């Protein structure tokens, strides 16, 4: 097993709820509330979870756009939080991010070539700049002429490729992908996923891949973390998770995935979650999921379950639940 590249240690990210400068925060949005994860060299960590559960926040924390309220981030064994401006700048070579929205993440007034060249210029790697840009375009399957086009002249999938080329420009070790395909139409989505897989193979990249779509995650991730309200509920390698998920939330998620197959789909049993997603400003006491959990007990309201392995057989499968239970695998092994 390869070395851990990125380690998150009990990351918390609280946003004070305040409107104006003078105000003392009354409360906090606990967007990320104690997340510990490890990503190894060359693997893909998938993160899934409900909208607003803190996935993007976590990603932004990793790339240094946000300073976590507490916790530590180790990259190649070194804590990066105390980094000064210069060290941070150096770190950016190694950690890059690809954004969800292929349109808004590209400056509409810069040509594709300029966009891709920007990080190179920022690191003064300007020798052979053009060559490098062409090489990158080539790598993501775009043509040289494309360097002269503006973002709006590309299709969604192509734009996302530009974003990926930009992220790859500095030869990063780690790529954070925040819902890189959610905005794309299924056929385009397929293009991008293929590209990412090829690149990982060729360049040995490490991915943190955030998505709503569990099918996509299943397809691309080696390891999956399921988040709910700022916490990781279940963490496991991908196969195990899709076949032997234990957390009631994961179970509900999996059961809610509509399958593109009318016959199977119409026979399925779903776990319907009751209630609404609680506010991250006032998360429920005890197990944060108890308000919607179909199997919640009285004790779940008082005690907070920790993320730990429940099944001796698989040390890579951790669950934060007092009553883990495996549901019928939705993925028939055929």
């Amino acid at each position, binding site marked *: 097993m390869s070395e851990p590249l990125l380690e998150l240690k009990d990351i918390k990210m609280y946003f004070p709820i305040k409107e104006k400068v003078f105000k003392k925060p009354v409360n906090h949005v606990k967007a990320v509330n104690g997340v510990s994860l490890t990503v190894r060299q060359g693997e893909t960590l998938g993160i899934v979870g409900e909208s607003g559960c803190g996935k993007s926040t976590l990603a932004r924390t990793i790339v*240094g756009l946000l300073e976590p309220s507490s916790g530590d981030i180790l990259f190649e064994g070194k804590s990066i939080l105390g980094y000064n401006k210069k060290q941070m700048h150096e770190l950016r070579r190694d950690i890059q991010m690809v954004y969800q*929205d292929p*349109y*808004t*993440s590209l*400056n509409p007034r*810069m040509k594709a070539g300029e966009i891709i060249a920007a990080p190179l210029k920022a690191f003064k790697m300007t020798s052979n700049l053009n060559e490098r840009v062409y090489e990158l375009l080539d790598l993501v399957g775009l043509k040289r002429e494309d360097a002269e086009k503006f973002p*709006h002249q590309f299709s969604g999938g192509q734009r996302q490729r530009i974003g990926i080329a930009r992220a790859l420009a500095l030869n990063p070790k780690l790529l954070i992908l925040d819902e890189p395909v959610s905005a794309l139409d299924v056929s385009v989505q397929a293009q991008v996923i293929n590209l990412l897989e090829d690149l990982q193979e060729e360049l040995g990249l490490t991915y943190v891949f955030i998505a709503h779509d569990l099918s996509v995650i299943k397809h691309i991730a080696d390891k999956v973390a399921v988040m709910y309200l700022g916490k990781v509920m279940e963490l496991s390698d991908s196969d195990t998770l899709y076949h032997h998920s234990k957390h009631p939330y994961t179970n509900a998620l999996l059961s809610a995935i509509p399958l593109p197959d009318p016959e199977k789909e119409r026979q399925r049993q779903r776990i319907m979650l009751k209630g609404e997603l609680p506010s991250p400003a006032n998360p429920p006491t005890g197990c944060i999921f108890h308000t919607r959990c179909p199997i919640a007990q009285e004790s779940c309201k008082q005690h907070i379950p920790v993320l730990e392995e429940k099944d001796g057989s698989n040390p890579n499968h951790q669950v934060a639940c007092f009553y883990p239970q495996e549901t019928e695998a939705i993925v028939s092994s055929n």
Partner: protein
Amino acid sequence: MLKKKRNLVALSILLLLTIATITADVWLPVSPGFIDAAQRLLPPSGTFWFGTDHFGRDVFALTVVAARVSLTVGFTVAVLATILGTITGLIAGYYKKADFIIMRVIDGMLAFPSLLLALALVAALGGSVTNIIIALTFSFWPVMTRIVRSAVLQINSVQYIEAAKTSGVSDPVVISKYVLPNVLSPIIVQGTFIFAKAILAEAALSFLGVGVDPSTPTWGNMLQESQIYISIAPWISIFPGLAIVVTVLALNMLGDGLRDSFDPHARKNKKRKQHFVKTKIAS
């Protein structure tokens, strides 16, 4: 197409005016300031297209020459206020820490009647074009700051700015290459607006007796001096008045055009953008 034609018309008007006023000394038959009491208050005629004023000066020549100061004031004020306002606005919008201080100063400036400044400067240093420009710049600058700042705040959290930051692009570059080009549209619109307002403000200052030295013709002081003749010799005020109106209209048209032409794909982009952004409008 129609729009393009409009821009062309606006541009030609302004160019024509600029060229006419710059070269006025060459082609005007008489020196525009030439006082000839015998020709006082003549109505428009073949010789004097716009009539003559109380000094017997040719109103046409004066109107043309007056464009010099008026356009200079308008242009300089617009450029200065735009540059200063853009710089302060960018800084305030981009750096949260600087925001409070800059905005309090700007609020103070905004709350400060520009008239007082103009009066003070003119009182202290005389009604020179420079002083008028300084006073007007001070009064238009904070407005520009506010506008730029609000545009920057809106764009700050847009992903391509974050993307640039995470790519290691330095702040000055982010500000100049990512933020600025994307807030240019309100800047251009406001800039042309300032140009127009400055021309009017110069006129207003002249009206209050603190404008440019009366021996230098400007549209403003022409209007001011002519106001008592409004009922007996309306032409003295109508023509500079019209000149202001036409210039301002042309400028605004040009400003709109400039904004559109700056981003030739504005319409298309906008649609696409909306399409993708929609799902992200959170509460």
